[in-house]
């Protein structure tokens, strides 16, 4: 029995680290949840979101990661060749063996002096890359990294996840605080062995433990991570102008926020799931891009991801003066949301390769 488990302590590097640039990407296609209900539920029953984003025929995690990375670089205004790590978190990497990150690094001009790696931890694969970036830069080993969360998430046809499993994500250039649009005040990670959702090797779609994915999985990890971080920083919900929680549907992040004492207006800017669904590893991170699009210098932002299996990464950010001018240099997340082509289930089935032709 472990009687001497360490007291939780948060991550705070010696050298302050922040977000130097950020960028999002959402493919243009939207599948209304009512379409999934029409095909699989006879049009009856509630839907967890309004509609979800769907990648086009010529899009995958690599192409979308490059789009988001280019937007992030627009805002960062740095030479891509000095980026010492290109990290892509996803659960829909196009290859089982062969990195996504090398293709992305090559495309944006970050090769060859860089640590390219793919990350995997269900929906929090990319916030881990963020956490590691803080370490790499905070220790002085590197000045810049690129952390990307991007997914073309899989949902079994007819499964509850098909309503929400979406495509999209965000990229972050992480660097020294003095060049940042927002500075990390502290971060924390919380993990347990909780098998609420998984996809085994060679399987096309994930399996999930129904309501087990709620209380003992999502809510426990999100709130434990958030509370530990806020307690250590001495902050409460009132200290934050914005909060972003992982968004598997519309309801969960709102309930988690309420439980932690946040008011609806504090999560409004970053709550994108009703409009785009759950782009898994991209979910919390694209929510943060929408917040950065509207936040004011001095604002405090709480970001908490959740990955099944299970764990949460929590970050407390303070917005810098530089944000206001630099965010205009790239397309906003709101503009991506407005670029919208509605499709029906048949088109969705074609775009997502649901029809087996041979």
């Amino acid at each position, binding site marked *: 029995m472990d009687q001497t488990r360490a007291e939780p302590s948060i991550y705070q590097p010696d050298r302050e680290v922040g977000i130097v640039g950020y960028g999002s990407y959402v493919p243009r296609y939207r599948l209304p949840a009512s379409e999934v209900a029409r095909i699989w539920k006879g049009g009856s029953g509630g839907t967890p979101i309004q509609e979800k984003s769907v990648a086009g025929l010529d899009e995958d995690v690599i192409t979308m990661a490059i789009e988001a990375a280019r937007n992030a670089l627009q805002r960062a205004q740095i030479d891509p060749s000095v980026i010492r790590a290109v990290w892509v978190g996803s659960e829909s990497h196009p290859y089982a063996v062969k990195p996504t990150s090398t293709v992305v690094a090559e495309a944006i001009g970050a090769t060859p002096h860089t640590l390219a790696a793919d990350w995997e931890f269900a929906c929090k694969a990319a916030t881990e890359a963020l956490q590691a970036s803080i370490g790499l830069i905070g220790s002085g080993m590197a000045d810049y990294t690129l952390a990307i969360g991007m997914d073309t998430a899989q949902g079994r046809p007819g499964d509850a996840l098909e309503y929400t499993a979406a495509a999209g994500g965000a990229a972050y250039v992480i660097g020294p605080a003095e060049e940042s649009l927002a500075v990390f005040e502290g971060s924390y990670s919380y993990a347990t062995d909780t098998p609420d959702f998984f996809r085994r090797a060679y399987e096309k779609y994930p399996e999930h*433990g129904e309501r*087990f994915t709620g209380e003992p999985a999502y809510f426990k990890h999100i709130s434990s991570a958030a509370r530990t971080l806020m307690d250590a920083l001495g902050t409460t919900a009132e200290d934050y102008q914005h909060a972003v929680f992982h968004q598997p549907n519309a309801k969960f992040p709102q309930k988690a926020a309420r439980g932690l004492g946040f008011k609806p207006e504090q999560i409004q800017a970053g709550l994108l799931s009703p409009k785009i669904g759950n782009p898994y590893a991209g979910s919390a991170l694209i929510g943060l891009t929408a917040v950065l699009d509207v936040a004011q210098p001095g604002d405090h932002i709480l970001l908490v991801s959740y990955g099944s299996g299970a764990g949460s990464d929590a970050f407390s950010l303070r917005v810098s003066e530089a944000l206001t001018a630099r965010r205009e240099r790239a397309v906003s997340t709101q503009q991506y949301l407005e670029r919208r082509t509605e499709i029906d289930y048949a088109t969705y089935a074609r775009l997502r390769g649901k029809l087996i032709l041979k």
Partner: protein
Amino acid sequence: MIKSNPDDILIAGLGITPVGEHWDKQLRTLALEAISAARQDAGELVPEAIYVANSLAPVLSSQTQLGALVADFAGLRGVEAYTIQAAEASGGAAVRQAYLALQSGRIDVALVVGVEKISERPSAEVEDALVMSGDADYEAIHGVTTAAQAALLMQRYMYEFDLSQDAFAGFCVNAHANGANNPMAMFQRAIDENKYAKAPMLCSPVNMFDAAPIADGAAALVLTRAELFPETPSHPRVRIAASSQATSTIALHDRQDLLTFNAAIDATNKAYALAGVQAKDVQVFELHDRFSIFAALSLEACGFAQRGEGWKLAKDGSIRPDGSIPICTFGGSKARGDSCGATGVYQIAELCLQLQGRAGKNQVPDVQTGMAQCLGGTGATAATHILQRIDGS
């Protein structure tokens, strides 16, 4: 006046855990919670035998030999212990086995614990496990689930007696109203007939409110003979005035009359004869409302309504706590939640609380005699108990 007899089997203590999705609890920890509460309620008595009521652990928890498991974990290592399995009637069956052992004089203090751990597995596996209480070779193999069997009965009932679905609304409204006052209930929110009418269909004509939720739970009772019970108990003494059990055909297609729960009739008539009471003497009836049609058929089988008229007792409010035959006074399976093999123990514990005046907001005034009946499968097994409060205690 009901006087005590040294041979009376008394309920010395009871313990109940909330019914729900206990993600962080194992079968053994749920059992321990109920046992600890029951033993605390029972005072100094030390159980000599444990009867574990359970139906699904071999399938859902890959665990047999619950007797040894529970005895060990509950700090009663060494006592004799068994699993009693009679599908969803396991709880009543276990109480009966404890009752018989105490009557034999070979056991002085018996512990009954009903426990079920459902949330371990996804719902499709739970559905597979539940259907095992039907006839595997002739029913389950054709995909006739538990809800489908109830639907066949309900459809036939509505056809024969020319009723529409709303005839059953009263059962759900009563159960949820009572559950709203039970802190151990899975659903503690009242519903109205309108909500019942709008409920999504589960297996036509059984809608979501016609079917009880299946969830984790444990309930325990400490039983002993009156001669061994303390002189000054903290609560009024409650005796088991009758204990009986009967079976009927396991498969629906073997029944002469689909709308008669023969096992319930036989077990109840035996119990009435043993206790020397009639239906009119029963002031509270904890019946097994796994489906609302079960409630209607149980009321008819036990002599509270004529064939085809059980639904009227729900419609006119007779089944409410202030009615002539209150049922499901803690929410029943519908609102308290149904923990399969544990349900019979929950029912008897709840009935005991009614007799002792410990039923809180749903207390039925001055209950002297009450009955509890649980059903295994679609009425293939019925275990019936009549409880009485002993006066002058």
